[in-house]
């Protein structure tokens, strides 16, 4: 039986619970990218992000009744599950930051070059992005979560608060502190090359 693309998530989930593989696949394809991005931005590790996405959908597959359509969208539910998995991952490996990320084909980092810059500019940009990435990953988990949700996922404060399961005020305060730490870190990183070049 063909499934309409516009079928609602809860309808698909009901079908998947009855053993409809196509419905499950469609649900996965709808939500996997968002889950993966969130996990990748939170952990900075593609392997961990992959594992988290797999765990999230395993949970959905094994116990679809955990999702209650009356309490919100499936996406929000999946975010919640992903967030729990991320937190567990952080607890397990509190300071794990991989030295280098590899793509599936074994090339470089997960960063994709999308502009036509010169090699020197590209290298500079790449370095800068790695610095930003490192700065984000060095933030304490709760501040990082606020920054990832509000700045990277571009959620509103309300959505982020709902996702993190805390009041808007808490999200705002976490974001404020996260930003302060991030700015300090980025300022420091900016000034280091400058000082190095002055010394030369």
């Amino acid at each position, binding site marked *: 039986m063909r499934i309409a693309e516009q079928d609602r998530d809860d309808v698909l989930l009901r079908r998947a619970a009855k053993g409809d593989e196509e419905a499950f696949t469609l649900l996965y394809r709808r939500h996997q990218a968002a889950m993966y991005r969130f996990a990748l931005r939170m952990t900075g590790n593609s392997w961990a992000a992959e594992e988290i996405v*797999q765990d999230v959908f395993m949970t959905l597959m094994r116990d679809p009744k955990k999702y209650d359509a009356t309490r919100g969208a499936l996406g929000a539910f999946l975010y919640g599950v992903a967030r729990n998995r991320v937190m567990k991952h952080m607890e397990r490996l509190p300071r794990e930051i991989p030295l280098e990320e590899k793509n599936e084909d074994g090339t470089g980092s997960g*960063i994709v070059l999308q502009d036509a810059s010169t090699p020197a500019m590209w290298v500079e940009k790449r370095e*800068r992005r790695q610095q930003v990435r490192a700065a*984000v990953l060095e933030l304490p988990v709760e501040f990082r979560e606020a920054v990832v949700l509000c700045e*990277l996922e571009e959620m509103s*404060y309300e959505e982020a608060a709902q996702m993190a399961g805390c009041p808007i005020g808490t999200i705002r305060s976490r974001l404020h502190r996260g930003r302060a730490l991030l*700015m300090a870190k980025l300022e420091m990183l900016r000034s280091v090359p400058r000082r190095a070049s002055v010394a030369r």
Partner: protein
Amino acid sequence: MKCEEFEAIGLDAERDASLSEVERAAAREHASTCSRCAALQDSWQAAGVELRAFAEDTAVAQAPARVEMRLRQEFRTQHVTLKVRRTAAIATWALAATALLVGVVSWHSWRRSRQEVAANHLNSVPAANNFPDNNSAIGANHKTSAEVPDGMLERGSAGAGSSETLVADNELSGFTFLPGAFAADTDEAAILHVRMQRSALGALGLPVNEERAGEWIQVDLLVGDDGLPQAVRLPQ
């Protein structure tokens, strides 16, 4: 708006939907008058640009195809296992129900056969009790159904499992004891229906009509437990 307040809510005032228009205006005004906070805001905006650039780099990131493959495999395994388990459970219940049914039917038929046997036994007891002289001279004699003459079959004998039945005393009446036989010797005797020539009666010590010596007659013999005839009865 004070600097602390600006740091807390003013940096992102334009995006924060929870702020009122008055608060936004106050933040803008503060940034225009306070150079420190204006620098802070510039710095944050620069950081924001870098964050957005970082976000763009990962905007197209997707879980590798192997994750989907693994999940689909797991999905199939789980649902096939579920189906097998369901089928096994149904089969088990069906077998159990069948076994129970067979058991109930067997028990019922066994009980019915037992009741029939008991009923037959009860039916035969009054027949014996009707004859209080059961322990008289002849005693309790046994007789096979094959030996019982037509019309003398005991009640309820049809379909009964036993081939032996009690014979009422009056069935033993009419016997003539052979010479040398005593009534006491007939306790375990059985009645034997035989067809013989009348002349054979002479061998038993009975008088024989010579003219009818060649006739075949039906005779009841009362045979003792030693196998010897004790008494004889000629049909009327």
